């Protein structure tokens, strides 16, 4: 993994920093780089804690609850609270999406059967027309 791949994109970091500062504020390049490194360290720190929890519970997959738990354990209660809400919304959105997909799949299947029957009807009509044409030409 290259050095750039090891860090979050600096453009995104800079954009976020600008977003919260007054319009007259300037940010030095080294400040952006420092925050970029801080964010990367933060990811490793939280992931490590979540991963240890999974290891203790004999699980191989780190999930959202583990991340939430890690933030709470590490004393970042404000972050944990906001992330908990985000997780709740994310799961709701996912559930809605799966339900929507299921619904669209069902309606898609119905449409498909209808179109198939239409195609069959059209093809039989076409065959009849061709047969008529050939019989008339034979006469």
């Amino acid at each position, binding site marked *: *993994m290259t050095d750039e*791949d*090891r860090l*979050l*994109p600096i453009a*995104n*970091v800079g954009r*976020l*920093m600008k*977003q*919260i*500062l*007054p319009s*007259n*504020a*300037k*940010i*030095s390049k*080294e*400040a952006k780089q*420092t*925050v970029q490194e*801080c*964010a990367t*360290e*933060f*990811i*490793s720190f*939280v*992931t*490590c804690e*979540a*991963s*240890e929890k999974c*290891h203790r519970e004999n699980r*191989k*997959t*780190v*999930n*959202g609850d*583990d*991340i*939430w738990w890690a933030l709470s354990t590490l*004393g*970042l*209660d*404000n*972050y944990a*609270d*906001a*992330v*908990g*809400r*985000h*997780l*709740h*919304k*994310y799961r709701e*959105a*996912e559930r809605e999406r799966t339900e929507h997909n299921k619904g669209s799949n069902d309606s898609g299947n119905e449409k498909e059967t209808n179109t198939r029957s239409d195609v069959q009807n059209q093809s039989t009509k076409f065959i009849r027309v061709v047969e008529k044409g050939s019989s008339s030409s034979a006469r």
Partner: protein
Amino acid sequence: MEENNGNNNHYLPQPSSSQLPPPPLYYQSMPLPSYSLPLPYSPQMRNYWIAQMGNATDVKHHAFPLTRIKKIMKSNPEVNMVTAEAPVLISKACEMLILDLTMRSWLHTVEGGRQTLKRSDTLTRSDISAATTRSFKFTFLGDVVPRDPSVVTDDPVLHPDGEVLPPGTVIGYPVFDCNGVYASPPQMQEWPAVPGDGEEAAGEIGGSSGGN
């Protein structure tokens, strides 16, 4: 300078009561602890966190590429597999960390400008260093950002009796009781004492008991 100071609140969105979604049952929102906020800037930070709690966030929009986050997570050899929701939450947490850290650093920039009586509008590495030093929750960034020795932490230290001491106080526990008999130190509440303190206290008390 006054302009800067006046501007500090404009970037902190004020949540309207209609926007706040009902909190999910298993993540009950708790009152924000005062000790997690820098004391001179509590109102700004409090507004920021209230806004974060109340924001109807768009779960489809992510501040960072999830593939990059997943790569960083998997750079830890202990991590085998990661669900789709984990990088989404990490992205959200990183976004909050960056906003939080930037805001704290900027408040330090403004404070520095006020003290030196010059207009300062550039955020530097030293401001970030000061911001991380000011709060205990950023101690994990010690390897990335060297702690600023000139800055005193803003987090009040909790006394074992529950009394809040002024910021920057460090509690040391004597190793001997008043009779010169070795006593086991009480359980630490929040942060252990500086390594030198306990030894000095032990030496003084031990010396006086030896005289008796």
